[in-house]
Structure formats: C-alpha cells, structure tokens
C-alpha cells in the first residue's frame, strides 16, 4: 500500500488539490447563491403583498445580493464585481440628508451664519465641558445673517451657489460657539462665523427637505424657526456658477413671505406634478401651501390641525433635528415619513387631484414595545386605500448597548433588517407587518468609522440600497 502510494504521489496530490479547491468552490458558490433573505411575517396575511413587488439589495464594493419579493414570494440574485462595480460612487451612495440626487447629479444644501453686528461681544474662552482639551468661546451678537450654500456635482461637473438671504435671527442673545485646541493660540475675533458651530438657540429646522427638483431646476426654501425674522421664500436656482468664482449666480425668488406676521416653522419644500408644496407650521397648525411651479402663485392652503407634530424630532445621537422627514412621490401621491423623537415614525399620505387632500395620518408606525430601533424610510406606495411602507430598521448591538438609553453614533455596531408595513389608509389599521431578515449579522463587527475612513473602504461593509415598491403589472 505504502509503495503504491509512493509511486503515485503525483496522482494523490493532484486529487487532493482538485477535491479541496473544487469542493470549496462548489460549497461557497452554493452558500452565496442560497438566498440570505427570509421573510418573517409578524402580523397579517402575506397575501396582501401579492399585488406589489418589493425590491432592494444588500451590496458592497465586491458584490450585490438583490432581493425581490414578488407576489409574496422572496427570491434573490447575486452579482459579483471584479472591476469597478456600480456602487463605487461615494456621493451617490452616501448622500447627506440635506441633499438630493437626480440623474446622477448630487445637490447638497447647507446654511451658514454671519455676524452682522459691528460690535459683537466676545466672552473669555472656557474649557469645553465635553472635551477638556478644547476651549469654548462664545460670541454674543444682536444681528446674525444667514447664507445658503448649495453645491452640485457629479463625476464631470462641480458648481457652487451662495445666496445671502433676507433672514436674520431675532433671538435676543444669539450665541455662536468657537472651539479651539487648548494648545492653539488662535485669536477668534473674525466676524465670519462660517465653519463654527452655532449655538442651539440659533439652530434651523432640519434641512432634509429644503431642496427639491422639478424639470431640471432646483428649488429651495430656508427651514427657519420662529426665532427668525425677515423674509423667507421659495427660490429657484437657474444656474450654478463655476466653483470658487465670484460671479453672481442667478437665483429667482418664486415667492416670498414675511416671517414676522405669523409664528412660522418652515419644514420643507416638495414638488409633485407641476406644483410645489411648502410644508410649514403656521401659528401652531401643520399646514401645506401649494404653489404653481411656474408663476409662484399660491393655489391652495391645506391646514391640518389634527397632526401632532410635537415629537417630530430626529435624535441622531449627536444632536436633535426638528422636522426631519423623508418624502416619496409616486404619481399624484405624496407620502411623508417623519422620524419621531422615540425612534419611531409618523406617516402622512396626500393625494393631489385638483386639490391636495390628506389620505391618511398614521400617528406612529407599529413597532413592538421591546424594539429599540432606528428607522429609515426606503419607499412608500399608496394604492387603492392601502399604504405600503418599506423601512430599514437598525438595531444597536454594541456590547453594553442599553435599550433604555440608546446611544447612536457612527461607531455603534448595528444590525439591520427591512420592515414592510401595510396600512388601511382610511382606518389607519396595520394590516400587515413583516421583516426581511438577512445574514448581515456578520457585518456589524468592527463597524468603527475611524477605521472605515482611514484604513479601508467603507464599501467593505454591506448596506441596503436601491429599494423600490412597484405594482405588479396585471396580465
């Protein structure tokens, strides 16, 4: 036996290599092509999903696993990239919340503040309570101006827009906060407050909905709070100038309104069909104002006193943003998804026929009592009295993470799943709730943003993307 083996060593090694490598290929291919997704129905009947198709994918730089829930059946498809995959654009993949991506062009929105007072009052620097290595210096000014910045870019173009608004802060003692290292000898006497943190008293509402897009034009408003005075409006950006040039850009005010006559909280701006919808709180009432996109004429004012907006606050872990929402437009339907302070969400669905009407107001998305999750809306769809909602649910699983005091940060490890809800729009009853679970559990290890940014590609980590809800075409 031994002598036979000795005289056929080549054959033995060859077989060992072939069996090991071939077996590994086969088992791994099988493992990867086996769907990593499964649908877990929590409540309701899965038949409710049969008329709809839900799609999304779990992808990184190397591969993408697409799931398709069609006629209530879940399937998946694997794509592996050896050269640059379709998801290698950082900007498209990770747009900031205050941005929109249209036709591969990315538009961002930001505001900065400027001291307009000739004699601002500078306080002595004091150690920062959060980080003793830093000093905090405050400046008191009785006149603060606000500048809007918007940037567009894609792989080929880059443009910048700067707009000095007619909005000023009317709070009696607005405070700007400067931070500097304790070793730094910088002298903060500049009156340009750009790049420095504005104190909480001067914060704007979330700028997530400040930009909207209609027929190759970008429209924006300024998400002011009742602490601001002056003139706000809806503005159209007609052209972006070259980056870093001083040429004035063309910005047309479509409509303007005074911030001083009413108690106004500007939430955002949406476009649906050929109308612009301004979302605001006017004298403590949730209000939608519908404007003609071309003329800027006010067509309708829809007041909704039944909307309880007091908890429309998004807690990002670092700061709180008022009125953070995500919007979805399909045809004549506008669905708004407001994130609540406790991590849940409210849903508002509107239809625009001749007039804008509220279809449904779901005060709080159905979540189990023990679910401590962060929700992100992925898509919503309104069809024949049913509201379909697709959400990403992130759950902190960092060791020591306490459900009673969730502390979200980029360094927090998390696991994700996709939730599907179906609501009866008339009664706001949850007819169906289910989760699409995946094998992402091995992904949240080492989700340390410092390492992802400096040492390796963030695309090494899978993320859910490219979601959509569609109607299944009837034969």
């Amino acid at each position: 036996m031994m002598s036979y083996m000795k005289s056929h060593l080549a054959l033995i090694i060859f077989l060992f290599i072939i069996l090991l490598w071939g077996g590994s290929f086969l088992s791994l291919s099988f493992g990867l092509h086996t769907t990593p997704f499964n649908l877990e129905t929590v409540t309701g009947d899965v038949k409710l999903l049969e008329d709809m198709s839900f799609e999304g994918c779990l992808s990184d730089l190397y591969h993408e696993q697409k799931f398709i829930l069609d006629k209530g059946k879940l399937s998946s498809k694997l794509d592996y990239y050896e050269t640059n995959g379709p998801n290698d654009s950082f900007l498209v993949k990770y747009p900031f919340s205050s941005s929109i991506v249209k036709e591969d062009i990315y538009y961002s929105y930001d505001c900065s503040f400027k001291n307009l007072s000739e004699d601002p009052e500078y306080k002595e620097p004091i150690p920062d309570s959060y980080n003793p290595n830093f000093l905090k210096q405050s400046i008191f000014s009785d006149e603060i101006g606000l500048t809007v910045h918007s940037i567009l870019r894609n792989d080929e173009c880059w443009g910048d827009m700067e707009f000095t608004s007619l909005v000023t802060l009317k709070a009696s003692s607005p405070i700007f906060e400067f931070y500097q290292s304790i070793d730094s000898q910088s002298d903060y006497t500049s009156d340009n407050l750009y790049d420095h943190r504005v104190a909480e008293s001067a914060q704007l509402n979330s700028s997530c909905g400040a930009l909207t897009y209609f027929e190759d034009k970008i429209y924006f408003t300024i998400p002011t709070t009742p602490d601001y005075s002056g003139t706000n409006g809806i503005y159209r950006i007609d052209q972006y100038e070259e980056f870093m040039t001083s040429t004035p850009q063309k910005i047309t005010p479509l409509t303007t309104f005074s911030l001083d006559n009413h108690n106004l909280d500007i939430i955002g701006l949406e476009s649906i069909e050929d109308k612009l919808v301004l979302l605001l709180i006017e004298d403590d009432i949730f209000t939608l104002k519908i404007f003609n996109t071309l003329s800027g004429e006010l067509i309708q004012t829809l007041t909704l006193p039944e909307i309880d907006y007091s908890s429309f606050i998004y807690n990002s872990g670092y700061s709180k943003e008022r009125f953070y929402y995500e919007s979805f437009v399909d045809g004549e339907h506008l669905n708004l998804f407001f994130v609540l302070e406790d991590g849940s969400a409210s849903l508002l669905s509107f239809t625009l026929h001749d007039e804008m009407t509220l279809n449904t107001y779901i005060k709080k998305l159905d979540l189990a009592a023990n679910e401590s999750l962060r929700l992100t809306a992925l898509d919503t769809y309104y069809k024949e009295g049913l509201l379909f909602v697709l959400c990403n649910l992130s759950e902190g699983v960092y060791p020591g993470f306490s459900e009673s005091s969730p502390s979200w940060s980029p360094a927090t490890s998390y696991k994700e799943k996709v939730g599907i809800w179906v609501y009866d729009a008339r009664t706001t009853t949850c007819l169906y709730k289910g989760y699409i679970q995946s094998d992402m559990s091995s992904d949240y290890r080492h989700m340390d943003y410092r390492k992802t940014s400096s040492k390796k590609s963030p695309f090494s980590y899978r993320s859910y993307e490219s979601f959509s809800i569609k109607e299944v075409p009837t034969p």
Partner: protein
Amino acid sequence: MKKLYYLVNHELKNLFIPTLLLGSFLIVIEYFISYFMVKTSYEDFFRLEELMASPLHILTFVICFLGLLALLAYNFYSNYKGSHSIYTLLTLPISRYTLYFAKLISYMFTLGLFLSMQLLSLILRSTWYTYFITHSYRLNMLESPWPIMENVLALALIRSPSLHFLLPFGMLSFLSNLGLFFIGVTGVLYLFLLERHQKYGYCLMTFIITISIVTYTFIIRLSYDMPSMSHWLINLIFLYTLSLYYICHSMKLIRQIDTL
C-alpha cells in the same frame, strides 16, 4: 508520458513530506495566532477577513513561503551534491525536456499542495472562529445575544481582496492567480537554471522583473479601488507572457548544458 509521470513521482518523493510538514506547521501556527489575537484583543470581535489579513499572519505565511522556496532550492541543488544524481538523471533514456517538465510539474504540485493546505487552514479556522464567536464567554455577558454568524467564510472570501489570492471568485481573479502561480514556479526554476549557467546578470534581472510584476499584481489587487479592466489585462499579459518566456528560455538552457 509514463516516464514523465515516473520522474514527477520521483521528485515528489523528496518534496512531499517536507511540504506536508511545513504546511501543517503553518496551520498550527496560524491557529495559535488567531486564537491569541481573538482572546487578547481589546476590540469586540474581529471579522474573519481582518483576522486573516493581520500582519502577524502575513509574516508567518511569508516566512513559511520562503521556507518552501528554500526546500525547492535544496531539492534542485541536491542533485549536484552527495551522490551527484544529476548524472543518473542525464543518463536516463529521456529527453531533456522531460527532465525540465518533471521538475516544473513537481514544483507546481509542491506549491499547489502548500497553498491547498492554506485553504484547508482557512476553512478550519473559519469553522473554529464561527464556533468561538457563537459560544464565547463574552457573549453571555451581553444583555441581548449577538446573532449567530452566518456565511462567514463565503462573505470573508468575497470581501477580502487578500483572500481572493487563495480562492478567487471571478474569472479575472482566477486567471491572475493562475498567472502568479505559473510565474512563481517557472521563475524559480528559471533562476536555478540561470545560476547553473553562471548568468548572474540575467539572474538578477529575472529576479527584479518577476518581483516587480508580482508586486504590481498585489498593488492593483489590494489597492483601495478595484482594478479596472485595463489593469487586469495588462497584469494578465505580463504574467503569462513572462511565464511563457521563462519556460521557452529554460528549455533552451537545459538543452545547452551537459549537467542540469
């Protein structure tokens, strides 16, 4: 063909056991490194691909790989030492080409065996790691249990460019790996033959060119961005053209000398 098979077996008799021992030694060392890294880490848990790509793992692999090259060198030069078996080989009723290909194939099998044992090591460690993570004492201290890791090896292999060198997932990676394998084995044998011809200048040049191309391959495949198609093609053309050149020139060299 039978003579070639016999000669390959004859060469492998001297290479098989040392390669097996070297591969087994590497498996054991790698297991201990993984174990101590996970046990003593202040991080919560490594992902498998991060564990495999740690500098200590790479260092031990490089040392053992150099050991394998030393084994091949010992095998080649042992024909010239002691019993001077090279003369026996040259008097066999076989062509010089058969002698060359017997050496080449046996070296390929040796390298293939070594790399297969690395794959085996990866599979064993991923199984152990999944078990360890699932049953770790640290998990029991958490308020909510960590979900069981699934598909760990497959995801590690798909996401780790360094592990693609061991088990490629696409045709381009596969061809590139095969090219690296060919250039490694043919290059080593070519270097030995050049040294026997006392062409030290060629030796140095071959060494530099081979190392440069291998380094280029590693750079494009391990870089932040994925390699573009043009990079892949350039890389493949270099690898295969050079391997072919090494084989052709080696055959010419072996024909010219009296003793291999």
